[in-house]
């Protein structure tokens, strides 16, 4: 690719401004949509605060207990996680926390809805929160059922008017807690830790949670490194067989230590069912949902790019046909097909890269709007460098995809036909 290629490409595109503009429009929109999707996916599945160690952690989010006639699926219970997951050999740390539940506090007669999560002391070691004030509660606090709480910046603003909150008390669900720390807001897309207020598990009004194998809690396992994950998975699976189900309404268990992506894949593709290798009786199909989801997403993206690519192909062919006589002249003067194709590919790449550049502010705007609507609260979703690179990569793929066929057509143009300008 030489400078003359670029200069010629620029002149050609400039000559037919209308065509260039509509092509750019189409490309920019497509790439903007794809970049937004990439940013959202990165935000959901990538390692972001406070679930910073996503690449070396696994979660136990769901448990299924079943027999011939019944099936219960829900979150694991505290007893299951405490007895069978907490002591997993090879894990650096294991935390158990409840699913955040909607609750409320009343300030001056007004109701403030908030999400309350019950967590153990290890929670603050496995996850990295950004503390604005104070500090987290400890394992001692959990042991002694101290009524302490960590609140988010938003709750500090709404309940305490934004001033220092440590030492003050907040009443939630007929219980009074003393604030010991304030953290930065957590985006609502965080599967394990999205909440507004965190309190020790032992402050739950009733202690019956300690006996439940099923219900209301999740576990997050932090491994020393990524390589330790398969061993942890296997260890959990073998422990499953040893769980005593004699007092429980089921005969078999199914659960798995999963990454976020695996969790979503299972939920989306199997309606939440566990595959055979995770079941104690080995029934059912053995399917790799994560791989299937990746495949489907890949196909989905290609399909999505198909229509804009087609559009670009059509426009490109129009461009070529219009310049048929120019091509004919160059060919008859000895230009090889390869050279002409190279020229065309450069034009196409310039077009798609320009479109890609245009797509970035569009995508940024779209993400701004998405963050503002109540759809995704406290998003803080920005165009990270990963999403940016993904977008750029897509632009190049796009350019090559839509340039292949027209380039081939152009190379087949017979010089004489082209000079005659009959098409």
């Amino acid at each position: 690719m030489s400078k003359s290629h670029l200069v010629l490409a620029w002149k050609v595109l400039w000559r037919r401004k209308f065509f260039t503009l509509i092509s750019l429009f189409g490309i920019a929109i497509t790439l903007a949509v794809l970049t937004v999707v990439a940013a959202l996916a990165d935000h959901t599945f990538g390692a972001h605060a406070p679930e910073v160690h996503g690449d070396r952690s696994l979660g136990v989010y769901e448990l299924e207990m079943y027999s011939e006639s019944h099936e219960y699926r829900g979150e694991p219970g505290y007893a299951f996680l405490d007895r069978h997951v907490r002591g997993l050999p090879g894990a650096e740390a294991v935390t158990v926390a409840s699913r955040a539940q909607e609750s409320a506090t009343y300030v001056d007669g007004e109701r403030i809805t908030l999400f309350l999560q019950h967590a153990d002391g290890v929670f603050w070691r496995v996850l990295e929160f950004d503390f604005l004030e104070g500090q987290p509660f400890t394992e001692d606090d959990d042991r002694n059922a101290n009524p302490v709480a960590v609140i988010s910046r938003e709750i500090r603003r709404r309940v305490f008017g934004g001033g220092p909150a440590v030492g003050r008390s907040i009443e939630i669900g007929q219980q009074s807690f003393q604030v010991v720390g304030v953290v930065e807001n957590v985006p609502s897309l965080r599967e394990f830790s999205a909440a507004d207020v965190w309190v020790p598990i032992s402050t739950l009004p009733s202690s019956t949670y300690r006996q439940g194998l099923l219900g209301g809690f999740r576990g997050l396992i932090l491994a020393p490194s990524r390589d330790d994950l398969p061993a942890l998975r296997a260890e959990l699976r073998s422990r499953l067989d040893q769980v005593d189900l004699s007092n429980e309404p089921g005969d078999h268990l199914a659960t798995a230590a999963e990454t976020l992506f695996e969790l979503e894949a299972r939920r989306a593709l199997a309606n939440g069912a566990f595959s055979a290798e995770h079941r104690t009786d080995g029934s059912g199909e053995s399917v790799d949902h994560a791989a299937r989801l990746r495949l489907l997403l890949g196909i989905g993206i290609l399909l999505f790019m198909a229509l804009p690519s087609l559009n670009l192909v059509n426009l490109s062919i129009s461009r070529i046909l219009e310049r048929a006589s120019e091509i004919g002249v160059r060919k008859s003067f000895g230009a090889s097909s390869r050279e002409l194709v190279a020229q065309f590919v450069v034009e196409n790449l310039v077009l798609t890269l320009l479109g890609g550049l245009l797509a970035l502010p569009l995508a940024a705007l779209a993400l701004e709007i998405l963050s503002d609507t109540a759809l995704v609260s406290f998003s803080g979703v920005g165009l990270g460098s990963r999403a940016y690179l993904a977008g750029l990569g897509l632009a190049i793929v796009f350019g090559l995809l839509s340039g292949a066929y027209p380039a081939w057509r152009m190379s087949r143009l017979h010089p004489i036909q082209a000079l005659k300008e009959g098409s």
Partner: protein
Amino acid sequence: MLLHALRLAWNRKRRNALVLLELVGSFLVLFAVVLAALAAWRSFVTPLGFDWQNVWIVHAQVDRNLLGLSEENAAKVPDLFLAELESLDAVESAAIGLFPVFDPSGMRTTWEDDGERVAVELFPASPGMERTLGLELASGRFLGEEDRGDPLSTVVINRKLASEVWGADVDPVGRVLVPPGAEDSEGYRVVGMVEHFRKAGDLRAEGNMAFQPLWTDQPLGHGLVTFFLRVRPGTTAATEKEILDRFHAIAPTWRFDVDWLEENRQRHLRLHLAPIAIGGLVAGFLLLMVGLGLTGVLWQNVTLRTREIGLRRAVGATGPAVRWQVLLELQLLSLLGIALGTLVAGQLPLVGLDVLPSPEPALLGQSLLVSGLLLFLLTTACGLYPSWLATRIHPAEALHYE
């Protein structure tokens, strides 16, 4: 003229094939969005079957110890809660259920009558539910104290369940449904029917619902229990706090949370409309892009065929005739695109991924029709400018064209 246009189109088939492909793609995009939107609209305009304005629910997490009370004393607890609620000025009526509304959680089972099996979703409710939720009976009556004397358990079902088992327009009152394989004496007698009970919300499909009696003089089982209350318009959060304080006094180890159905409904609508809105927006941009592209391509076509058009004008074709010719070619192409697209879309019920439920034929038909119409309008709009351009070609100039 038609035949001629067809022949012209066939001459340039390779070129037209690509445009056709683009049209088929656009049709499918339109179809997807129109289908989703029509399905949502259809759901939205069907009545819910219950009131959500001025109705609150209190979620209670009941522990396993029955508050440490004896069985006899624990059995008095539900009535205590109801009494507290009804003693408040702001509360017009109250009831107890197990599951909330605008929520997918529930208990599902299978019943049958005469070999005809149906999936049923159970909704246990105390007799006060009729007044609290504003249920309207289409036939029979709601559950009540008089059912205690019945040797069979009683149920109130929705019309959807009745139609599925016994056919539409059959009054189910008096009929009996049984668990599979059980005798009639272990079954459930229908004492009333409601027209609709769309428990899961405006934008989800209605299930086969059955109200079962929840007697308030029995201890509440462990797990979740939901209190329903109808409040006077204008009731504030102060009443909410009052209720929570009183409930907490009765059962200090239980957890209570209050929801206003109005807010639950908003959340439900937002959750289900969001994907459609986003899909619609993206589809809109895609179609705009296709439209602009098509206009450009057609413009190109006209410019390339200047001599041909000029020649026609020279031998006497009128302006409108030329314009029609261009438009006709385009419209033939779009009709073909719509036909092909319909063929592909028609495969949907057969291919049907497990993820998507198969839509009913009437909805499919309507969506196909609307999408076809919209695409036709779009392509015609695209063709207007180029066809107008064609009429502006002066024969003499055209014949000189280089």
